[in-house]
């Protein structure tokens, strides 16, 4: 008997007296939340000690340039399909950079798929403007652009928008650890600096406003 047959057989005999009708899952938890989602998102991302910047959509390239300059990022890589005007002098990841080259790059600028206000999370799904997973992992600085209309309130809303069969990366703040005395310390293996730029409709935000920042580690 193969291991597969044996394990499935053990399961079936273990469950022989169990009622096999599917347990109904009651989903009485919150599906949506009220209020200014963009504001909440900005607040919650900043809670993780990421830098959050709000800008009008038509000022996006300037806002990105300001942040790159602020953190002293000179070499930048972007996914091949990121709008070229966002970071005019960037290297694109086409053909894909090898890992050592990626490691030698200061930072990466990408878009995202969804932002979750309640948890301050951005989700990348390797879709438009996001590139492959290694791109946002190896460089030490990640600037992620979130359009205001990509922000949803809750985790259930995000799950509904996302395709589970795509490779996803959920990011809530910079890399961190709680392994020393259960205190959170930012900056381990993933990017140590995370900058989230929220791009609103042009009329919404008249000029770039800085929400919060941390000093460079």
């Amino acid at each position, binding site marked *: 008997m193969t291991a597969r047959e044996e394990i499935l057989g053990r399961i079936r005999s273990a469950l022989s007296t169990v009622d096999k009708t599917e347990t109904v899952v009651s989903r009485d938890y919150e599906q949506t939340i009220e209020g200014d989602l963009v504001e909440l998102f900005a607040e919650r991302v900043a809670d993780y000690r990421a830098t959050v910047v709000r800008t009008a959509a038509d000022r996006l390239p300037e806002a990105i340039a300001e942040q790159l300059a602020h953190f002293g990022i000179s070499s930048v890589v972007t996914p091949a399909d990121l709008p070229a005007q966002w970071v005019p002098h960037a290297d694109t990841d086409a053909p894909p950079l090898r890992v050592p080259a990626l490691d030698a790059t200061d930072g990466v600028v990408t878009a995202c798929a969804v932002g979750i206000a309640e948890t*301050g999370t951005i989700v990348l799904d390797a879709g438009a403007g996001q590139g492959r997973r290694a791109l946002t992992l190896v460089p030490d600085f990640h600037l992620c652009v979130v359009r205001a209309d990509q922000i949803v309130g809750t985790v259930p809303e*995000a799950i509904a928008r996302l395709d589970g069969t795509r490779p996803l990366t959920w990011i809530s703040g910079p890399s961190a650890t709680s392994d*020393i005395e259960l205190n959170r310390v930012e900056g381990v293996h*993933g990017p140590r600096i995370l900058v989230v730029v929220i791009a609103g409709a042009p009329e919404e935000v008249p000029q770039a406003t800085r929400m919060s920042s941390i000093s460079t580690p």
Partner: protein
Amino acid sequence: MTGTWLGMPPFPEAARKALGDTQLRTNLRKATGTIRGKRAAVVAERADWEALRVAGKEIKDRTLHNLDTYLEQLERNVTAAGGVVHWARDAAEANRIVIDLVRAADADEVVKVKSMATQEIELNEALAEAGIAAYETDLAELIVQLGHDRPSHILVPAIHRNRAEIRDIFLREMPGVTEALTDDPAELAAAARAHLRRKFLTAKVAVSGANFAVADSGTLVVVESEGNGRMCLTLPEVLISVVGIEKLVPTWQDLEVMLQLLPRSSTGERMNPYTSTWTGVTPGDGPREFHLILLDNGRTDALADDIGRQALRCIRCSACLNVCPVYERTGGHAYGSVYPGPIGAILTPQLRGVTADEVSPTLPFASTLCGACYEVCPVLIDIPQALVHLRAKAVDAKRGKPSAERAAMRVAQWFFGSSRRLRVAQRLVATGGRVLSRRGRIGRLPGPLKGWSGARDTATPPRRTFRTWWESR
């Protein structure tokens, strides 16, 4: 069970030793206190927390009650997405599959993401025996590995170490680290980053576990903080994931519950820094080969037990450890298993068998039954109920063998068996009690009663029993 946990003393013995370690108790009190506060704060933010817990319980029950169907569905979906599914009856079989895969990839080292399943099967030891070096990349696992130590907590295996001890371990074991390293946690984390960087960028094979496996999409999920998980799941050419068969959830939608329950319960965060999900292989993005090893190793035995089965709902958040008054004082090593604390006390005896070794039958007694674990469990595992159930099993397993407790019960049975004998016994107790009594209390007693009476006074039996009073009315 092989080397690492073999010959561990029974819980009471190990606990007594741990209680004498004041440094350990200080470290644990500090760490569990911190995490309890953080968890309470983020849970209080959610008015719908109880509804989430109920949904979490129901999702896992639904999984367990139809486990064969969901496993087959997962297998189909992973295979369709380009992954390879293997099945392992026990630890030895799982380890052999991993070793064969690493050799087939022509590698002699692997990078590892923290995984309870691979701890449970003692994969690192098996790999070492096969000449394959395993590098733990989670900070706490690294501290344990470099310290030649054992894990003592599900989430933070090095919780028993404070920053000064961690600095000493790094100084001793990490090449290139100098006396200039301080015990500032940020500096220690930076040292780990530098130490592992080259390994990540050059490793050919990675081994992981998974927090969840989604049956209807074939998706695997790893929840982490540091980015070591992302490194292992993304950069190597071959990814091997060892996953317990109970880790399934039926649908993609079910993750909306689990991804809210887990981070709040484990690290006390609204969301953990990184969650990665992947389905088979994606050309041009991540590993070229993906192997999923589905592990039984005693889980089907637990599944067959109507009360014990609920332990398989566990999502390994470790909230029950952090609130447990016993765990806080003894630490995790006393439980003699990779799964310490309240959940370990019900999981270990079921996975190994209640009479498998010296430790297992003592674990269901490693609790005050205060119920704090049940109150924080995100999937509503009634740990006290399972503990009592397993206590009965541990006692049943010893039936027929002579013991002092059994002899005492036999004597009691004889006395309680007739009113005449009970009357004699009461008279004897009343007289004997007065002889032993000091100021109305009976203190420490000699012989086999020492264990009970050492910390408890007994009231002196009254001169007149109820019966004699009743008869004299």
